[in-house]
C-alpha cells in the first residue's frame, strides 16, 4: 500500500490549532462570579486624592458655568439695551430667560442634534457671548452652548452632573432638573440627565 505524500505544515496552520483551546463551560460561571465581585470591590475602593480633587473641581465648574453664563447674558443684554437697568430689570430678565428656555426645549427635541457631548469648558459661555454680534439672535444658542460645550457635536439632552438649575419663565417656570444616574450600587454619580420640565 502506498503512503500518501505528507502535506507541508505551516506556522499559520499550527497557530490555527490555538483557536480550539477553550475553557470548560463551568469556567465561565466562576469567571462571572469573580468579575461581579471585583466590580463591586472597585466601586467601594477609596479613590486617590487626585481623583477626588479633580471631581471637586469639576463639580465646582458645573455650578459655576450656568451661573456665569446667566450673569454674562444679563450683562450683555444690558449692554445692548435689550435689558434695561434699574427698577424694571426684573421682568425683562425673566422674559428673556423664559424664551431661551423654550428654545432649549426645541433644540433638545431636534432629531438632527448629535447625541454625544462634553461639558468641560467653563469659560466658553462668556467668550461665545462676547463674540456674538447680535445678541438677540444668539440668545438661544448661547444658553444651549452654555449648558453643553464647545463641541460641534453637542447636544442638549444630557449633561454631566449639574445641580438643579431653575430658570423662571413668563408663564410659570421652567426648571432644568439634574437627575443623577447611579452606577447601580448606590455609588458614584457619573452623569445626569438635563430635562426641562414645566411646573
Amino acid at each position, binding site marked *: 500500500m502506498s*503512503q500518501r505524500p*505528507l*502535506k*507541508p*505544515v*505551516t*506556522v*499559520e*496552520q*499550527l*497557530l*490555527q*490549532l*490555538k*483557536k*480550539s*483551546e*477553550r*475553557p*470548560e463551560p463551568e*469556567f*465561565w460561571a466562576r*469567571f*462571572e462570579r*469573580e*468579575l461581579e465581585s*471585583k*466590580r463591586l470591590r*472597585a466601586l467601594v475602593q477609596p479613590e486617590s486624592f487626585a481623583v477626588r480633587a479633580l471631581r471637586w473641581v469639576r463639580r465646582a465648574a458645573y455650578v459655576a458655568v450656568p451661573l456665569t453664563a446667566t450673569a454674562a447674558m444679563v450683562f450683555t443684554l444690558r449692554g445692548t439695551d435689550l435689558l434695561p437697568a434699574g427698577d424694571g430689570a426684573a421682568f425683562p430678565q425673566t422674559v428673556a430667560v423664559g424664551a431661551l428656555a423654550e428654545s432649549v426645549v426645541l433644540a433638545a427635541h431636534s432629531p438632527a442634534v448629535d*447625541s*454625544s457631548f462634553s461639558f468641560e469648558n467653563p469659560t466658553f459661555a462668556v467668550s461665545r457671548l462676547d463674540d456674538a454680534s447680535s445678541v438677540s439672535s444668539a440668545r438661544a444658542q448661547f444658553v444651549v452652548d452654555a449648558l453643553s460645550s464647545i463641541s460641534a457635536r453637542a447636544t442638549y439632552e444630557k449633561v454631566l452632573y449639574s445641580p438643579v438649575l431653575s430658570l423662571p419663565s413668563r408663564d410659570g417656570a421652567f426648571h432644568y432638573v439634574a437627575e443623577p*444616574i*447611579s*452606577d*447601580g450600587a448606590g455609588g458614584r454619580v*457619573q*452623569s445626569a440627565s438635563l430635562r426641562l420640565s414645566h411646573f
Partner: protein
Amino acid sequence: MAFSPSATNSISVTSTEAMTDADEDAILVKRVQAGDVAAFDRLVVKYRERLFSIVYNLTSNREDAADLSQEAFIKAFSSIGRFKGNSSFFTWLYRIAVNTTLSQLKKNRLRRFFSFENMSEEASSSEILEALVVKTRTEKGALLSELQERLNEALQKLSPKHRTVVVLFEIEGLSHQEIAEIMDCSVGTVRSRLHYAKQQLQAYLQDFVN
C-alpha cells in the same frame, strides 16, 4: 456562546450580520451610559470568550488571562461614559484588554508557568494533526500536548508586541487595520511585526513545520 474567531472576523466585514452586531453593541453601550448595568452584563457575556482568548494567548496562563480579562471589563465599565463611538465597541474593548495585558507583561508580574486550556475535538481531528502524527510517528494525545506546549513556548519567546500582532491576526482573525487601531500604530508596522514574528515562529517550531 462558543468562542469563534470567525465571529470576531465577521465584525470587520461589511455584512448585514456585522452591522447588526455593531448596532446591537451601540445600543447596549448607550444603555450602559444611561446607567443600565444589566446592559453591560450582556456585553460581558458577548465578548468574554474572545477577550479571554486574546489574553490567554498573550500570557499562556489561564489564571492570569481570567484576572486580566476581568480587569479589562472593569476598566471598560468605569470608563464607558467616555466612549464616544468613534471606533467600534469591540475595538475599544480589545484595546483596553491588550493594553492591560501588555502593561502587566512589562511589569513582569505574571505567572511564569504555562497552563493549558483543553483543545476541542475539532483540533484533534484536524488534518494538520493527522499529518504531524504521521510525520513524527507519535501518539496523537502526546503529540497534541507537546504541540500545545511548544506553541506556547514559541509565542512567549516573541516580544509582547510581536506576540500581540500574531495573536490578533492569526488566532483571532482581525484585520491589519483593526490591529493597527487596537495597538495604536500604523498598518505598515502591523505588517512588519507580523512578518518578523512569523519568521521567528518558523525557527522555533521547525520540528513541526515543513
